[in-house]
């Protein structure tokens, strides 16, 4: 029994490693694969028991997403999804832009100045990362109803600051802190004011960091679900909320829901591959470099 040659042991080890790697891959990728498959199914294949791996694929669900009509089927489903997609873009871009504009000077102040309350302020900002949304969304909801901000892009962009602003400031601060003080001092000796230091030294040197912050901020906004769930209406729903709308009075459009899932996730997947080196840093607000 125990008389295994070293090469035999080696083989067993390699097979075990390969199996483990395959299992990990399967666990990670299979849900995507299955949803892709589901999104290509017609209504007849959708609910078959047992589930079908082989079927004649159709793009009807995607067509329905864009054109609001599934040929020969639910002729009445309206094409809301392009609007939701556009809303996601408008709100995410708006929220990130606002956060960057307010966040750059704030991060600069936190990175390069000492002042009373500095660490307290930084902690307050950090704590926003952990707030339960409901504590903010209840009063916001009531306020927005009164102020007419309910179901508007502006209202959502403001609410999204809860997600993006603390993140932006912490991320930028960690990038700004990486720039050696010596460069900054040299610029000051050359007669640069604080503004000059910021625009001529800090910003150019941290351009990669700013891009990463923008992209990650965009991803987090795109992922937001609960704020728009309560604060948006049909005209301003982003894709995350849109994806749960495929339940109507008479039927659930599982195929369209799957297609919507794929479309909603696509920008994320592309963007996250672009910034993959920085994702961990972003998710910990710069705590892990």
């Amino acid at each position, binding site marked *: 029994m125990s008389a295994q040659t070293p090469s035999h042991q080696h083989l067993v080890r390699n097979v075990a490693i390969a199996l483990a790697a395959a299992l990990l891959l399967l666990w990670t990728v299979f849900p995507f694969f299955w949803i892709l498959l589901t999104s290509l199914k017609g209504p007849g294949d959708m609910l078959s*028991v047992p589930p079908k791996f082989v079927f004649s694929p159709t793009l009807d669900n995607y067509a329905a997403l864009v054109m609001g009509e599934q040929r020969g*089927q639910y002729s*009445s489903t*309206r094409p809301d999804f392009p609007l939701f997609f556009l809303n996601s873009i408008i709100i995410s871009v708006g929220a990130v832009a606002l956060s960057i504009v307010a966040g750059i000077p704030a991060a600069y102040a936190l990175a390069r100045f000492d002042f009373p309350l500095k660490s307290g302020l930084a902690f307050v900002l950090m704590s926003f990362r952990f707030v339960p949304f409901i504590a903010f969304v209840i009063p916001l909801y009531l306020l927005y109803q009164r102020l007419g901000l309910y*179901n508007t892009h502006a209202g959502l962009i403001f609410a999204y600051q809860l997600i993006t602003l603390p993140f932006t400031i912490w991320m930028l601060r960690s990038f700004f802190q990486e720039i050696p003080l010596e460069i900054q001092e040299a610029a000051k000796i050359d007669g640069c004011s604080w503004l000059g230091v910021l625009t001529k030294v800090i910003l150019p040197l941290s351009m990669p960091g700013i891009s990463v912050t923008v992209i990650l901020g965009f991803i987090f906004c795109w992922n937001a679900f609960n704020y728009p769930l309560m604060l948006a209406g049909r005209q301003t729903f982003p894709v995350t909320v849109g994806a749960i709308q495929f339940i109507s009075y*008479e*039927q*659930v459009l599982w195929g369209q829901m799957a297609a919507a899932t794929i479309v909603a996730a696509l920008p994320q997947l592309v963007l996250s591959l672009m910034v993959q080196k920085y994702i961990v840093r972003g998710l910990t607000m710069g705590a892990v470099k």
Partner: protein
Amino acid sequence: MNVQRRWINRLLLSSPLAMGGALCARAQDDAALAYYREAKINWKQADGQSLTIGLNKHPFTESLLPLIPEFRRLTGINVEYLILPEAEYFTKLVADLSQQRGEFSVIMTGPMRNWQYVPPDWILPLDGFLNNAKLTDPNWFKLDDFYPALIKANRWDGKTGGGVGEGPLYSIPVLAETYILAYRKDLFDQYNIKVPTTLEEMAEAAALVKKNAGIPGIVARGTPSVASMGTGFLSGLKSYTDGQWSEFDGKMNANFHDPRSVKYTELWINMVRDSGPPNWANMQWYDAMEAFTAGQAGMIADADFFAANYEDPKKSKVAGKVGYALIPPGPGGKTYSGLWTWALGISKATKNKDAAWLFVQWATAQRTLLNATLGYRNYNPSRQSITNDPRVQEIMGSWGNGSYLKVLAKNLETARVAWTPQPERTRLGDIWARALHEVYFKRLSAADALKKASVEMDKVLKEAGIK
């Protein structure tokens, strides 16, 4: 049958009636408007005003949207709309109504919902509009074309604990929903199962289907929400007690722990636990409906018009194999089905009230509703003339080999709103549904769970100042 249906659809599409989407040629458009212009009112009296309509995601809604430009040409009124799925819709609606900002002028509501909106004075009675010759041509609108039971359901005198069918009319019904038993006729025939006429027989039939066919004998809604309570379960309970039991005693004390209610709950939950699907506790209406449509259940006691789905050969595996029957009656031999109507009402805070009424009148006119039924499967029609339309008869008449229409007609004789009017119906229903879970998961006996629920409900009613 398949071919025939398609042929009918094509015929419909080429007729001027199906205005949905593509067909908007001018000549046909004028023909369409001509019908509305027969009304002896000035449609242009609110020219230039604007309305926002709050709509639930629904076939009726879908049928309206392509017609809105037509409404604008008829009246000169601008219409904006907000469409949401049911749960989100009612949340936003309460939020808007409670602020009285008048964001929604016309709303989609219904009997039980009105009980929530009438006491705080959020929606308008419609009788004033109906009786105003300047705004309504009664001979053209024909309120008596609507099934009387549906109009009654939308009347309420505003008194907690009763008064349905009395007092002002708060909304105009656009469809009718009653509750019936749909069963797999093929399986019942194959295994010699009798169509149940009592709750006990229903449980037996469910067990037999499960034993013989290896699929759940019954599917039903089971999520812990009011949405699970009002259809098959409540209709069954009302029938089981010969219409005698109601949620409250004479003093508005919750009566859910009444011995008859306890007995019924035990029977129902045992049936669902023994012969139902394993995931009953997470079943939404659509899960139940889809399971039955996919051939994965022997029976379903729920909304009648789900038949439109069961009988659609394109997505149903049971088309043509379904039989329809009344929900099993109680000892008295009568079925007491619940009733729901989606209906259009008007928010009190709206500025353009006349314009809002013109919209309601137009949207519930015979021609508009006929189009919704033929082109968008808006079942069951709320107007008798639409049910009697030969084209509608041909479609609905084919369901269950004609048994559907017969059962529906019989059901409509006694169907009525099953709930007792009070503003906290949603909350109480949620508590009730949670009690069923306690029984289903054997945490508590039916008697204890329902007693606990009654106590909690009394607390809520007291807190809300209802009793």
